[in-house]
């Protein structure tokens, strides 16, 4: 909180901050800009890493769904046998990687939320037998071959190729990505707008000093450098806080996901992703400095 300047006047000896003729480094209003930049950085980091993470998650889900099929054989006496036959035959089809019969306990895990953990109950239930198929690539031919093979081996079985899900999921993830991009752009826009505003209001605040410097023959460059340096240092400070907050959130998130039971999909970042994230502060710095420069020049140009 700023102390009443009169105290400052009386008790202190003046120290000119090297390079500044205009008291931009005084505390009034400074916190605002730093805070805002910090917030913006944080939001940018979150939205970027969110969209990156979402992308990975979606890729994983999509490829999981795309390269997987499930075959359900209704409970019957030879269901198990049919299933085993399928698990043998299917891998011979092109692009089929594996085919595996799910055991009782696999199914039990899936059903436990509904039927309780009591395995004795489960063993009494005549559950369907499931065959999980993994593909390396999904082609219409492969899908057809699988269906044919299933039909001939276990006519009652149902092939779940997840097609409806796939389309929905792609729609959703694409929508989310576009949203994240829009948010990203919006934040950048708001940031440069706010910086321009901050520069203008600081210049209006120090109008008299500016005019004096101008009158004494200071060039636009001489004056603008002080503002640019100021905005640069404020932005850097804000970026620092924002990145710090972002890192803390990541760490928190990492610890949290490690402790969790695994229901949250993991957000593993690649090298490129880290580079993208790391470039965000620089992007902000460049935009901030550039905006400041343009604003200062446009205001200075109003002077004779």
């Amino acid at each position: 909180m700023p102390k009443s300047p009169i105290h400052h006047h009386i008790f202190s000896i003046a120290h000119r901050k090297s390079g500044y003729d205009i008291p931009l480094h005084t505390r009034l209003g400074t916190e605002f800009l730093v805070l805002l930049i910090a917030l913006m950085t944080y939001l940018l980091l979150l939205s970027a890493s969110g969209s990156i993470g979402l992308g990975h998650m979606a890729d994983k889900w999509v490829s999981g769904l795309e390269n997987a099929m499930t075959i359900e054989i209704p409970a019957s006496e030879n269901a198990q046998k049919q299933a085993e036959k399928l698990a043998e035959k299917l891998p011979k089809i092109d692009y089929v990687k594996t085919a595996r019969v799910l055991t009782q306990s696999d199914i039990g895990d899936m059903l436990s939320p509904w039927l309780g953990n009591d395995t004795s109950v489960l063993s009494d239930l005549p559950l369907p037998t499931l065959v999980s198929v993994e593909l390396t690539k999904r082609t219409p031919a492969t899908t057809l071959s699988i269906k044919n093979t299933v039909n001939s081996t276990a006519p009652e079985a149902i092939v779940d190729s997840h097609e409806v899900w796939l389309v929905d999921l792609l729609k959703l993830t694409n929508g989310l990505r576009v949203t994240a991009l829009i948010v990203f752009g919006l934040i950048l826009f708001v940031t440069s707008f706010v910086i321009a505003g901050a520069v203008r209001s600081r210049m209006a605040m120090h109008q008299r000093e500016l005019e004096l410097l101008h009158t004494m023959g200071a060039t636009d460059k001489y004056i603008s450098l002080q503002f640019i340096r100021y905005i640069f240092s404020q932005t850097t400070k804000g970026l620092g806080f924002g990145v710090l907050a972002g890192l803390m959130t990541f760490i928190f998130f990492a610890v949290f996901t490690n402790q969790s039971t695994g229901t949250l999909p993991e957000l593993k970042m690649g090298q490129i992703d880290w580079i993208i994230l790391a470039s965000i502060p620089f992007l902000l710095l460049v935009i901030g400095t550039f905006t400041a420069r343009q604003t200062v020049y446009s205001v200075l140009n109003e002077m004779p």
Partner: protein
Amino acid sequence: MIKFEHVGLRYGIGPEVLSDITFTLEQGSFHFLCGPSGAGKSSLMTLLYLGRKCSRGQIHMMGKDTGKLKRDELAELRQKIGVVFQDFRLLPHLSAFDNAALPLRISGVSEKKIKNHVEELLDWVGLGDCMKRLPATLSGGQQQRIAVARAVIANPRLLLADEPTGNLDDETSMKLMGLFEQLNKMGTTILIATHSTQILDRLPHRRLILNQGHLDIFDPNAQSTEPPKMPEFLHA
């Protein structure tokens, strides 16, 4: 040095504060600028230090038509002009030293040279032990002396002083006038706006007299103490 041709000035949409001003100040001359309060002295000064564009007419300075200069050329020209403002215009957050050093910093002089020059000058105007203090902790006269120091520190080619002794006692006033005369002898063109009969009586320089936006020139050496309006001097 300075040539005004039919210069007029109005603020915004107001009436003309200066109208049809024509005069020439020669290199190395010393003039006083007189006239009642509100006559337009400070406004004329503003035009001279290029703080504002005239609404009509032409101003030539140091051989250039100021209306046709680029921004950087204007800045260069301004660096050669020292101004003592009527209201001082010291930067409130800078010490006396830094205020006086401003013109040197703007023209990129080395810090060592700045230190020597500024300390010497502030000592001379009697502010040797106030150098690190902020303007708000100085008396009116002390502030005015810093304003004067700032105006002369860079050895300007044109010195404009608007009421530079309004807050000073006679002794200090005459000392500063001595400084101005010294600068004048070294080639600086000087124009001082003043009300002080004290100063006007003692120094025999020519006077520009402003009244209701019109300018007359009066030479106390040529005509003893008569009123202005002498066509001879307009041609001289």
